[in-house]
């Protein structure tokens, strides 16, 4: 019987474009110190440390080796992870395995990135097949544009809907002191953005940020002893796509993405029949405005082709019936290695009622957090206020 796992400490740095005042380790240490302070623990209480980012995105490989002093991992167990866009959520899931196994009572999870140190788009281009795909890839942007165009064709969603998503995200981010891009943008402002990769202008895409996020996970016994407001990780799932089918379904072919499988399975085994009513907030990994809508559908929050209508009605706004990314999401803050960890952190803050200015207006009992990335797989976590 696995141990139940709770989040007992949450820490993040402010997010910004550049941090020349800190090196990678010092940046990470800010988040670690904040998470330990939040948990009212010291490094001595931590039994395992998991760290991850986008390998190579700061121009160096195996960077965890030079980060040990700053993570506090010396003499402790743990892992380093590099699983693309999912790295931040995958670390939390791995942390869960560490604690759930019964081998560890506490585990520190750190996601981070310093995008000011190299060209993110160039780095992402190197993930593709060199013989046939690499010449036609423009980092992650090409995939995002291709899915966005396909989403509009399939569902009748218009560019204006994506602009609404971004305007809403900017409103949320303006309330979040740790978010990166915090300017309030109107739908008109968004539509006037500089074109990057048609049909995506600058505002439809996530920024490249600098930041780190750390969580302290604990077993049930430990959590109940040390934490006043533990947030429970009730369930989590990882589902792979295949490289060729990750982005595309042919006309006539049944659409089944890794998001669809993940949503279906996690709701089924937790007896959730109407997720939009039974879950109060979703910190969805949304690197592009169109994808927030397409992926809400794929996760089964609403039917295919319905998400842009929910956006139109304000359902996904912070005060709406089903708030999506009240933190401002990946659309306003994207230090890739920390983006997934941050989704879990922000969902947990909403459950604790500690999200401050960007706290949603409804009482949050259950929340979702997701991750997706270049490794073509989906992570989905279900968090709750109570252990059962």
């Amino acid at each position, binding site marked *: 019987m696995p141990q139940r796992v709770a989040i007992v400490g949450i820490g993040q740095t402010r997010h910004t474009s550049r941090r020349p005042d800190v*090196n990678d380790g010092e940046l990470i240490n800010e988040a670690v110190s904040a998470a330990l302070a939040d948990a009212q623990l010291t490094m001595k209480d931590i039994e395992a440390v998991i760290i991850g980012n986008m390998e190579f995105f700061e121009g160096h490989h195996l960077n965890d080796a030079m980060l040990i002093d700053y993570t506090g991992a010396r003499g402790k167990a743990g892992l380093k992870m590099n699983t693309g866009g999912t790295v931040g959520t995958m670390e939390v899931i791995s942390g869960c395995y560490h604690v759930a196994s019964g081998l560890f009572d506490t585990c520190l999870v750190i996601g981070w990135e310093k995008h000011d140190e190299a060209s993110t788009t160039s780095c992402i281009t190197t993930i593709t097949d060199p013989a046939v795909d690499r010449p036609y890839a423009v980092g992650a942007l090409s995939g995002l544009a291709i899915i966005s165009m396909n989403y509009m064709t399939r569902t009748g969603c218009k560019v204006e809907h994506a602009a609404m998503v971004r305007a809403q995200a900017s409103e949320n981010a303006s309330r979040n002191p740790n978010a990166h891009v915090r300017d309030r943008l109107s739908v008109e402002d968004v539509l006037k953005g500089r074109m990057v990769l048609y049909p995506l202008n600058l505002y439809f895409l996530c920024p490249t940020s600098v930041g780190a996020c750390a969580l302290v996970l604990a077993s049930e016994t430990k959590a109940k002893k040390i934490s006043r407001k533990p947030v429970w990780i009730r369930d989590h799932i990882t589902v792979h796509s295949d490289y060729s089918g990750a982005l595309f379904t042919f006309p006539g072919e049944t659409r089944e993405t890794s998001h669809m499988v993940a949503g279906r399975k996690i709701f089924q085994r937790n007896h959730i029949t109407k997720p939009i009513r039974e879950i109060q907030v979703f910190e969805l990994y949304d690197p592009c405005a169109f994808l927030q809508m397409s992926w809400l559908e794929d996760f089964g929050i609403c039917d295919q082709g319905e998400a842009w209508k929910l956006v139109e009605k304000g359902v996904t706004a912070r005060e709406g019936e089903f708030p999506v990314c009240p933190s401002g999401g990946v659309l306003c803050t994207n230090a890739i290695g920390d983006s997934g960890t941050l989704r879990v952190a922000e969902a947990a803050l909403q459950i604790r009622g500690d999200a401050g200015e960007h706290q949603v207006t409804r009482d949050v009992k259950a929340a979702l957090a997701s991750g997706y990335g270049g490794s073509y797989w989906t992570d989905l976590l279900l968090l709750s206020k109570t252990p059962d």
Partner: protein
Amino acid sequence: MRQETANQEPIITPGWIIMPYKYSVGALASKFFIALRDNKKIMGVKCSKCNLVIVPPRSICSKCYSKLDEFVELDGKGTLLTYTVVHYVPPVEGLKPPFAYGVIQLDGADTGFTHILGEVDLQSIDVGMRVEAVFNENRQGNILDIKYFRPLASNL
């Protein structure tokens, strides 16, 4: 498939990964690099809790996890702890072999400092030999502001 393609020429895609990048050393290590560049001084950082002196400096003590900010000035002399002689030509730009690099314990420091050994007969390098830092004329605030470490005259 295997039989049919066994005698065909393999298709190889040659390519490069060319990536400019930068590294912000942080506020604390900036002081170390500025001291190298402007004053030809090697600075270590001292842990007030466990007295460990670390060079190049780090802002967290590797031994006791305390925050560090107290600088100590070192005199640039030290003892060779271990070394190697490089004969291999790596496919990336760098030094021309044969050359040696070593791990040096600087006087007053508790950590190893890795750098190139110069003005030295590659056959006669020995663990325990005393060395000193030689600085470059044109210094730019990076670790190669130290040109290399050479044997102290007292070894000879």
